[in-house]
């Protein structure tokens, strides 16, 4: 990825949210963006998930 400044780089990932097909077929609209506080709470929950996932992987490969 593009370098931000010397020695800095970036890579993306995605959290996929699979919805019930019935809600989609009924024409439901995705919810509005979260408030800054709630977005931050979710970001920390996601970061904790990924840390756990990598820790498990490191333990398994060690």
């Amino acid at each position, binding site marked *: 990825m593009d370098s931000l400044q010397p020695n800095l780089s*970036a*890579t*993306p990932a995605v*959290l*996929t*949210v699979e919805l019930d097909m019935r809600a989609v077929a009924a024409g439901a609209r*995705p919810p509005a963006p979260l408030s800054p506080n*709630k977005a931050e709470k979710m970001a920390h929950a*996601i970061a*904790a998930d990924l840390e756990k996932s990598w820790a498990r992987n490191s333990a398994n490969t060690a």
Partner: protein
Amino acid sequence: MIMPGALYDLTELLQPGLPFIETLLELYRGSLPQTGFVPQIVAIGSETEQFPVQALAPLRRPGSGPLLAIPLLFVGQASAIDKLQEQLESVLLEKGQAQLETENCLRQDWGLQPVNLSYVTVNDLCALLKIQLENAELGKLWQLLESALYRPNERTRVELDTGNIFFLEGNQAYSPYYTFDEWQALHPNLSDPTAGYSEWTKQQRTYFAGLGAHGIEVHPVAGTPSLAGLCENKGLDKAKRQALSNPGLLREPDHDPDNLEDASIILLTEHALNELGPVAYTALVQAADGTVLHLGNEYPLQPSGIAMIRDYWGAKRSA
């Protein structure tokens, strides 16, 4: 890490050049102190329905899904990111399930009842999209999207079994659009040309909509001279020259009707097919003595083309 507190349809994220990455990168860069890089978690939220970063504003189209996504961008020292990238590729698709706290956030703060929550890489996401499209018998749409996402400098030509032809270069697609007569001339031995044209039109609309949803600009191209049989290079060059000046509308004959000052009767007949709605309009203009001043067919190439045709002739009628 930086992420928006918003949900997106896959079409909004998987666009040529993956622009969400650059936008998140810019925001992260802007959040850094003068002293340089500091690891931090940056979340972008909004107190109103208006998202603070327009380039990341979710479209929230009704019926989006069933797979929605929250993009994440990890920023760090190049060596750490290289290692992380390898980990993401090897770990996420197999073991990247979200835990209870994240699921609770989604349920409580968004009121969603997710069937599944998984962390994936962008490559994994593309693989999921490929499967979705192939299951919907749109494998060739995936061929075009794959080219736009992974090989933007290459030229691609795709032809469907129904004869629809698409040329692609970067985020620009070109496709010949035939009138019924042109299409029939290309398929003289069909027993039911209306059914054949209906199927061709259906595919054309599906591909136009699919490409457009992924941020690819679609240019309808005059069907004659024919582009059939031309390779991606010669075909694309010719298609660019034949691109219609009005992408919403194909006129036969291909110019504005003139000499309508003496018009007394304007008759607009809609030709619609059950599955597709309006496919074409025939405009007949006569003078008071019955002289035909204009007779032409007009094809809406986008939903907006229908209103364009009706408004144009409505204005002529009331002039």
